[in-house]
């Protein structure tokens, strides 16, 4: 049923439909509303789950780790510093092959402290073994949560999924969202059946010391599984379409006017909505531009990206995060896609925008298209204020 909801409320509704048995979270802006709504649902008896209040994100992640290990579906959500504080446990959850879904309300990292949106927090955890899906709007956020549990809990996958939604822009944005029917969700997402679980009657040990004789195989196995994830997400996406009607194609990327495009922007998250608007505007003027939206950042769909972009002459990669001292994170992947390939874009320029919540406006996107010329640029900051910069430390 279509409802006009705040993004956070929509997430809570989606999670409720997934029926987690344990929820644990620590409030942090801009994630707070998500867990606030869920706590209310549990208190009102709408959701039969245990909501565990904890003293930190590290504990919240530890609680859900333990919960999944005992064979229960669990959920947590966080942002920014909270995600980084969780990071130790997040690597463990992936290493233990525990299926879990976490909502990351994307927010900038300190210092200086900043509560607004960019994608530095989740991008920084790209190597943690978590599947990362980036949503453009609140409908995708809802649908990706259902798909996330489905992918995560499959016996061949068993990896945690991070659903990333831009803080404030999506979490606090009001949109009309189609909340799926509970009966359909039950068909799409059967109850979680663990392969192994912690049970005093039949004791096992998870995550025991793995010395040099054993550790490498655990990492290799995750690396191999990510290849399976690339094949499995399209299947889940197709299943999702057949039950709920919304079509995310292969669920890895979304192509928007890329077929005949000469200039394409590659981006992730809510900024894709803004880019689509500029693409529409420029298309009306007869300019051949397009957008490639990356949904699955981990695993990264190299061959899909290659297929889409190989005949495009100029590509701009728009990052809402930086890898300080190196190329921007998404740009690295796009460049790596085409390294050593015969057919590739002539220009792959990299732009950084919207850090710490600086608005990426229609004009910012137009500027990216304008700067996408014969000269390749690397990690060019858009909408920078040079008057705030100086060469030496101090006043």
């Amino acid at each position, binding site marked *: 049923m279509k409802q006009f909801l705040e993004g956070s409320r929509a997430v809570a509704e989606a999670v409720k439909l997934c029926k987690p048995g344990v929820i644990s979270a620590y409030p942090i802006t801009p994630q707070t509303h998500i867990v606030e709504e869920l706590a209310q649902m549990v208190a009102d008896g709408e959701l039969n789950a245990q909501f565990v209040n904890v003293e930190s994100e590290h504990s919240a992640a530890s609680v859900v780790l333990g919960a999944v290990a005992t064979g229960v579906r669990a959920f947590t959500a966080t942002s920014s510093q909270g995600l980084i504080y969780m990071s130790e446990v997040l690597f463990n959850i992936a290493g*233990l092959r525990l299926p879990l879904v976490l909502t990351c309300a994307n927010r900038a990292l300190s210092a200086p402290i900043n509560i607004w949106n960019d994608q530095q927090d989740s991008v920084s955890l790209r190597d943690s073994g978590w599947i990362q899906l980036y949503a453009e709007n609140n409908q995708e956020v809802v649908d990706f949560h259902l798909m996330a549990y489905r992918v995560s809990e499959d016996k061949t996958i068993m990896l945690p999924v991070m659903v990333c939604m831009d803080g404030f822009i999506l979490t606090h944005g009001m949109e009309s969202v189609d909340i799926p029917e509970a009966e359909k969700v039950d068909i799409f997402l059967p109850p979680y059946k663990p392969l192994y679980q912690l049970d005093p009657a039949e004791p*096992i040990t*998870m995550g025991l010391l793995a010395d040099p004789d054993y550790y490498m*195989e*655990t990492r290799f196995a*995750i690396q191999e*599984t990510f290849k*399976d994830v690339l094949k499995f997400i399209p299947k889940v996406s197709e299943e999702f379409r057949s039950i709920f009607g919304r079509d995310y194609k292969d669920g890895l990327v979304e192509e928007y006017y890329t077929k005949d495009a000469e200039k394409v922007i590659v981006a992730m998250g809510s900024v894709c909505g803004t880019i689509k608007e500029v693409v529409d505007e420029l298309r009306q003027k007869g300019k051949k531009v397009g957008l490639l939206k990356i949904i699955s950042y981990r695993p990264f769909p190299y061959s899909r990206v290659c297929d889409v972009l190989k005949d495009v002459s100029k590509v701009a990669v728009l990052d809402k995060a930086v890898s300080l001292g190196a190329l921007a994170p998404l740009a690295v992947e796009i460049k790596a896609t085409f390294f050593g390939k015969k057919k590739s874009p002539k220009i792959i320029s990299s732009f950084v925008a919207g850090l710490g919540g600086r608005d990426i406006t229609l004009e910012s996107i137009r500027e990216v298209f304008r700067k996408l010329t014969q000269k390749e640029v690397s990690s060019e900051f858009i909408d920078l204020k040079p008057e705030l910069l100086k060469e030496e430390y101090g006043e």
Partner: protein
Amino acid sequence: MFGPLIVKPSKAKGDKTGSWRVQLRPKFLQKNCIGCKMCLLICPEGCIQGKEKNTYITDYNFCKGCGLCAKICPKSDIIMIEETSEGEKK
């Protein structure tokens, strides 16, 4: 694909720590042994057995090669030798 993740509970006997030895292993000469049992008592792995004098021996499946038995033997009847010398490495 999965790597080794789950361990079922087992006794310490299942964990053959002999693979930990890197360079040296104890050799029980069984010549001047007086049966004082000091080697058996000090062994952190508990893998030394023996009853009479000159009968004490270690189980190389478990011996980590720490050298405590050789150090404590009052008759210097246990010596540490190179893994590769004098016979096969276990």
